């Protein structure tokens, strides 16, 4: 979707503000937000792609004024309600009002080290050979789905060169909506800065994205 999250090339946000000696967390609630997000992810009820889509559907004015942990919490509330674990009314009340759906697992302290060390690999085998090879010139498609996509707006309908065939991976655009993992070949596609930004672009700039095969057409 063309949401507030798709920020590449937008202007007006001012300078980057690196914070010297930045703490890992700026408030206690940020720690709980991290832990809750990961704990609830362990339910096995939604995928990382669905959770990204929940974040990008936060209304633009809210998204752009929120800290990232706030974005996580707002999205987590949506996911918990959608999957029957907790409702807005319960969060407002601050107590349980009904029994939750049954999660595949509840993350307990003894499981944390193993779960974090395993992570969630999302490479998957595919039956077909890759359509493109290193050095091929391709163009990204132009599309504007209302659903999840990982092809940023700035990189749509742009010509580039395949720099690497990176393996085959879960297709985020489908997986975010429960349409299955439908793995595809993934490529690192590199663009000249001038192809993307046109007149006035930094002539020394190249930008790459990691693009699933169905985003690409041969030139």
């Amino acid at each position: 979707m063309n949401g507030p999250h798709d920020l590449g090339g937008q202007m007006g946000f001012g300078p980057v503000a690196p914070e010297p000696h930045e703490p890992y967390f700026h408030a206690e609630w940020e720690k709980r937000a991290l832990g809750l997000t990961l704990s609830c992810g362990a339910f096995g009820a939604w995928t990382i792609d669905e959770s990204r889509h929940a974040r990008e559907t936060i209304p633009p004015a809210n998204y752009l004024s929120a800290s990232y942990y706030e974005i996580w919490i707002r999205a987590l509330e949506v996911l918990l309600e959608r999957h029957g674990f907790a409702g807005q009314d319960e969060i407002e009340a601050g107590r349980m009002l009904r029994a939750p759906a049954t999660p595949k697992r509840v993350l307990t302290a003894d499981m944390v080290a193993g779960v974090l060390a395993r992570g969630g690999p999302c490479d998957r085998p595919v039956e077909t050979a890759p359509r493109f090879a290193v050095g091929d010139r391709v163009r990204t498609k132009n599309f504007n789905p209302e659903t999840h996509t990982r092809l940023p707006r700035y990189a749509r309908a742009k010509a580039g060169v395949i720099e690497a065939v990176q393996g085959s991976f879960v297709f985020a655009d489908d997986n975010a909506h429960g349409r299955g993992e439908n793995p595809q070949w993934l490529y690192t596609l590199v663009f000249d800065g001038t192809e993307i930004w046109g007149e006035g672009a930094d002539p020394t700039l190249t930008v790459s994205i990691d693009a699933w095969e169905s985003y690409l057409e041969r030139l």
Partner: protein
Amino acid sequence: MDDHHYDAHDDHHHHHDNRYSDMQARVRALETVLMEKGLVDPAAIDAIVETYETKVGPRNGARVVAKAWSDPDFADWLRRDATAAIASLGFTGRQGEHMRAVFNADETHNLVVCTLCSCYPWSVLGLPPVWYKAPAYRSRAVIDPRGVLAEFGVTLPQTQKIRVWDSTAELRYLVVPQRPSGTEGMSEAELADLVTRDSMIGTGLALAPEAGR
């Protein structure tokens, strides 16, 4: 958990910020509801926080870079199969499942961003800083990287090209900065002290040896 527990650790800057206190109440309510339902274990949350406060952070990545500087075979391995090379040092897991290492050189400087969210190589760099997740960096890194670098105090020669890696899928990128001059004969541990977090994102350079000591 009561209010006092949360307030005690808040810093003064955010203590009076309404949005932060709203979030504090909201997150506390959420945790309470989920605990009552038996869905979350507060001790698991503590363990997650402790992991990223004390175990998984940019010192991991610095060890990878220092080894790559010191050991050409390791550097080759890192180039070919970063996930395995990094795992050989014990750094694996969440948001580091599929690693790629990109090497700075005189010809090209590499810079990593996630314009769409906040993808970041947690296994080697830990949790991302606020600026990495904020709109200013995510919007500008791909269109004005030299302007962004200037805000970090980095000016590259015009002869050095810039390559920006937008982390749009599940590959996570670690920048291997150039080894500073005057570091011949230094041990891996000494070299690792020169490797900053920002130098592994591409918004900084490795420190000169006198600065690291």
